[in-house]
């Protein structure tokens, strides 16, 4: 493997202890409230209005789970209809073409002006493996594959410098090959050469988060070392008492072991029957106790909402895309 891993570590931001916070002291590091939308074709006519209403209610993020329609496309569709709420498709990292997946996710980041994230899952359903002509991997191989696909994706995302498109009319150079680098990822079951076919996206590296529901499948390395944080899942399908939710979130934030809780995700809501009521109630209760990040503002990046630092590019001279030219010049 010829990857540099310097930027791949987890961001182990200190988890704020709940009792030191008040509503006035909201600061980066508090989790963002997310509502899970299932990409069910029956909801086609409702997606736009739901996203719009949730954004107006100050909800920080929408996660889009696979209910048939491709979650990345649904997220892309919602991007121009919103301008503050973050969009995180929940998609598999195992039975996919890593290069396509990385391209699709960074494109969502372009389209949404930096509001994209990835809720990484590792598929364990054997029928999914069969759709791409593969056999289901064991637990260990699934975890390794998920880690490889995540690392490869980040290398693709990081392959163009922010200023790679120079548009220099004097020299006639549109894109400077010296500011591109190959991904040169070699995993156990696949390799990705790169560079990306898409310029660097606004966030550079999309936040990658692991939902509690997916922790076991993605394995410890992805969940605790590689990902940017944890998603606390709250199943509210059978109703939710605000005080119980507040308790759960408080307890999760107080835990000092494990990855930081970046997202609190409400799953199982019947958004057609109860589009906003429960969400608004829970959001108000959490916010009142100072347990939520401020509502996002228009154009705010997801990294910023989550309190993640701007992603610095890890330039690697050994992988520079103009290395062939450099070598031949050096030889001459």
């Amino acid at each position, binding site marked *: 493997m010829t990857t540099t891993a310097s930027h791949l570590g987890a961001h182990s931001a200190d988890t704020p202890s709940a009792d030191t916070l008040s509503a006035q002291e909201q600061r980066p590091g508090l989790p963002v409230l997310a509502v899970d939308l299932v990409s069910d074709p029956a909801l086609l006519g409702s997606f736009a209005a739901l996203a719009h209403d949730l954004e107006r209610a100050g909800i920080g993020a929408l996660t889009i789970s696979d209910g048939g329609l491709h979650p990345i496309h649904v997220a892309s569709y919602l991007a121009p209809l919103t301008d503050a709420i973050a969009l995180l498709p929940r998609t598999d990292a195992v039975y996919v073409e890593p290069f396509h997946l990385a391209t699709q996710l960074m494109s969502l980041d372009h*389209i949404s002006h930096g509001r994209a994230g990835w809720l990484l899952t590792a598929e364990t359903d054997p029928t999914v493996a069969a759709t791409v002509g593969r056999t289901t991997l064991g637990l260990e191989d699934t975890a390794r594959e998920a880690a490889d696909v995540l690392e490869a994706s980040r290398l693709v995302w990081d392959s163009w410098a922010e200023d790679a498109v120079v548009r220099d009319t004097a020299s006639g150079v549109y894109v400077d090959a010296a500011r591109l680098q190959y991904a040169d990822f070699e995993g156990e079951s696949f390799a990705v050469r790169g560079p990306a076919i898409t310029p660097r996206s606004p966030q550079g590296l999309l936040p990658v988060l692991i939902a509690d529901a997916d922790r076991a499948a993605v394995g410890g390395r992805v969940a605790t070392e590689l990902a940017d944080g944890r998603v606390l899942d709250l199943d509210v399908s059978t109703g939710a008492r605000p005080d119980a939710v507040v308790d759960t979130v408080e307890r999760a934030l107080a835990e000092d072991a494990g990855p930081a809780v970046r997202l609190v995700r409400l799953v199982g809501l019947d958004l057609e029957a109860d589009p906003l009521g429960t969400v608004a109630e829970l959001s108000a209760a959490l916010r009142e106790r100072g347990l939520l990040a401020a509502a996002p503002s228009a154009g705010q990046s997801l990294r910023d909402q989550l309190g993640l630092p701007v992603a610095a590019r890890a330039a690697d001279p050994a992988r520079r*895309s103009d290395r062939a030219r450099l070598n031949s010049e050096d030889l001459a």
Partner: protein
Amino acid sequence: MSTTAPLRPAADTELSAEAAALATGPAEHPIHPAHTPTGQLSFGAFFQGVNSSTIWRLPQSGEQVAWESFEALVRTAERGKFAAFFLGEGLRLREHRGVPLEFDVAGRPDAQALLAALAAVTDQIGLVATQNTTYNDPVDLARRFQTLDLLSGGRAGWNVVTTDNAWTGENFRRGGYLDHEDRYVHAEAFVEVAQQFWRGEQIEHDGAHYSVRAQGDLPRSAQGSPVLFQAGASPAGQDFAARTADVIFSPHGTLEAAVDFRRSIVERTVAAGRDASSVKILPGAEVVLAPTEKEADEKIRWVRDLQVGPEQAIALLEQYWGRDLSDFDPEGPLPDVEPEVVESGVTRGAGFQFAKAQELTQQWREEAAEKGQSILEFARVKAGSRRGTFSGSYDAVADRLVEFARLGAIDGLNITPWLIPSGLDDIVDHLIPRLQERGVYPTDYAGSTLRENLGLPPV
């Protein structure tokens, strides 16, 4: 809700001398007895995203990857009742001698993710993604297309391409697994699996390269399933289109070439057991317009000079010579050195693959010497905008297009704007009204699906 302009039957119209010379059939079917021209044109807007055709040097050149550029372009196209907005795709950044090409525009978003977003801000225009059959999984791709088709209310199209080189394969799990000869055999099986998925069927496919088990589980869209486009000019590509496609995105610009191509496609379509007129032909075109012919001539030269600068001229020749030519003066004659014929031809881009470097470069040297052209002048003529069929004064281009339509040579154009995002403005403001007046272009969308707006039968 069809408000399409009244159709002028091709049989009633007299053909010009040029067109009549090309026509071989009776007046009601001038090109082929089995084919009846509709006399109508549909336009597609082709966002290219690579190559020298897009001018990036002007202050008004928008960002290639910015959402705002795409949104502005597609809105203009929809204002002009374009049937489709069309995105190309290349799954590896183009390189020359191991280094990404630096002088042309490069870098574009994933086609389907972008089109899903454009579906949210448009109502009627079709959304066509070029997607490759060699480096995708059929069920995954089918699900994504069906998602796009459902999100857009039946406006999705798939331009099926087969680029199969191993160099592109370095970005994918399977690498370069497919023999070039098998590209369309594979593509046909791939499309069949996708269609099964769209029909909601159970899929049990066991092919030469993989086995797939899946169950189509999405509802059908308003147009049934995505419209299939095909771009590939080889005989195998034409046969594939004749059996499978709804629309061909062809590279034929002149009337003569378009007539030959139509005849070839009609013959193949009939041989495949389909109705002779069931495959629409939309050649790619660059359109440079001005109020008068004289102004158009000046504008074409101006566009061409901006498209191909000195560095691009040298880079263009390097793609064919296969070696470093940076010591040659762009203002001087073509290089007198021999090309290096390296087997890594694929890294020089799709255009090169089958050309014979030795023959071609010799021919070019002679051609340029004969015309007294420098490297730069020669490259501009080869790669830049030409005084082609679809450039000229508003009226002249409109008249020529009427001729194409009546003869039945084409069903429309897939237009590459040379400027993003304003490159369609004069087409929509000046050419389309003239075509509408002449009765060959719709005054409104025929319906809300891409299939309806291309005049295709329902599935």
